[in-house]
């Protein structure tokens, strides 16, 4: 079980890095990358524990998550491009039309 604890430790590290990035960075693209980091932390858990238990369900789940991450990035980049065309910036602290 010691090796499983290492996996959990690394995935927590990855996840925390992603969360910290989302909270600290102001560039929409970097935030998107940090979200990917969070998803990959989850993937690491899924693959490692499925391998540990000798099943494939978790690995299939991880593959599907990768596909979904690609779809999410496609939509995210489209939105960021549209934002850049309107405002000439992708810094999220400069989009503040909506307030209250």
């Amino acid at each position: 079980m010691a090796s499983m604890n290492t996996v959990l430790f690394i995935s927590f590290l990855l996840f925390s890095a992603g969360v910290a990035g989302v909270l600290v960075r102001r560039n929409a693209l970097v935030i998107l990358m940090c979200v990917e980091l969070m998803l990959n932390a989850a993937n690491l858990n899924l693959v490692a524990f499925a391998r540990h238990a000798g099943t494939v369900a978790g690995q299939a789940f991880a593959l599907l998550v990768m596909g979904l991450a690609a779809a999410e990035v496609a939509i995210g980049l489209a939105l960021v491009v549209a934002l850049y065309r309107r405002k000439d910036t992708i810094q999220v602290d400069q989009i503040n039309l909506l307030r209250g």
Partner: protein
Amino acid sequence: MSFAAGLWGTLVRDLPLIYPQLLILVAATVMLWPGDVFVPKGGKGQWAAVTVVVLAAAAFLVSRTPSGMGFSRMYQVDGITRGFQYLCLAAGIITVLLSQLQLNLHKDQSVEYYALILYSVTGMLFLVGASDLVSVYFSLELMALCIYILVAYFREQERSIEAGVKYFLLGAFSSGILLFGISLLFAATGGVTTNLADLNEKLALLPASSNLLVFLGILMVLVGFCFKVAAVPFHMWSPDAYDGAPTAITAFMSMAPKAASLAAFARVFGSGFGGLHAEWTAPLAFVAAASMILGNVAALRQQTMKRLLAYSSIAHVGYMLLGVLSSNVPGGVQAIWLYMLTYLLMQSGAFGIIIYLQGKGEGERIEDFRGLARTRPVLAFAMMVILLSLAGIPPLVGFFSKFYLFKLAIEQGHVTLTVIALLTSAVAAYYYLAVVAAMYFKEPAEGEVKPVSGITSLVVGMSCALVLAGTLFGAYLLDWAGTIL
């Protein structure tokens, strides 16, 4: 060969469970291609008519779907699934009807708008029946990804784009948290299962050493769901997204995804983590109380109708979380369903009236309602009925749905929470009545002619009529919900 044969057999057996989703998926895809490419451009709104027909046909198929579990126990059809599926389909139809005025004003009738609504509704139909954390996660994402685009649909407007980007970034962040929570629970079972029923058995038997893992996993799933239903303190995206989105999409967001997410919320926590009730009651009770208090207090100082309804919907989610808290006992989900049904009726009417008064992007301030009783008495009366019902003033139908939820919460011992709910309902009555007072006791602004739309008045009329009809049968509503769910 035997593997393929087995797969085929499973498909043939389980496919009838998802006929409604298949119909919508195929219809949306055919609309995009070859529909939009080869069918000559007809009159405006031909695709709107097609969409309404598809959604109504799907509702008919839902009524014919057999109960059962399929697809390796990932998807389950029961009375509750069907009940929430009706709500999502009805919300889709209402959204398409409400969209017409705004889309025609912007001369922006395109097939993608309707296809995205259809895909999103497909995600919701899967979500309310999902009985495995894997299917919960993916159907939630299918639903959300389409709505991100719809929020930013008027991409020539800065507000719309801004709302879309904000919603997308926070939505992606929250689904990352949800997924990590799921992976932790998967790890806690030793990498064996994500099925809700199995989780409930396995998690209860775990040794004390993995308690932290289970607790963190449940907490992260809770945070993910709270983001999706916009409960305090994970609500910050919702007023901005509601404000910037096209108004019909705002109506859609406040009805359909909310119903579907709450259904999944109740199913995951009721049947998946029901055995660990003690672990998640305290955090969820905190979220519910915070949503009721902050949602209602923040709504007091709003200047525009859309933001007011956004904050009030945060408060309404707080009330519905009382039902999620009791989702492990019979009657909890029924109370949520009933609340969501009446909420859907009232929201569709309220947003219909906002769209009615709205020109190109303006006319949604509360001041615009001044003197409405003078200029448009029927509309003002409908708005008054709907607002009073939203405030939960007896004997309107909104009172009964609140009453059943509060009664259930008291029976489950959440007395403090119910007292908070009652007090905040009084606060809510203040800002709803302020709008009513503006309509009836203030002078109208300088004469401006608003566009009249038959479809919008149809939605408003239906909503007001159903609220009044529900009022007559208020005492029988919960029994009725019990018989059809």
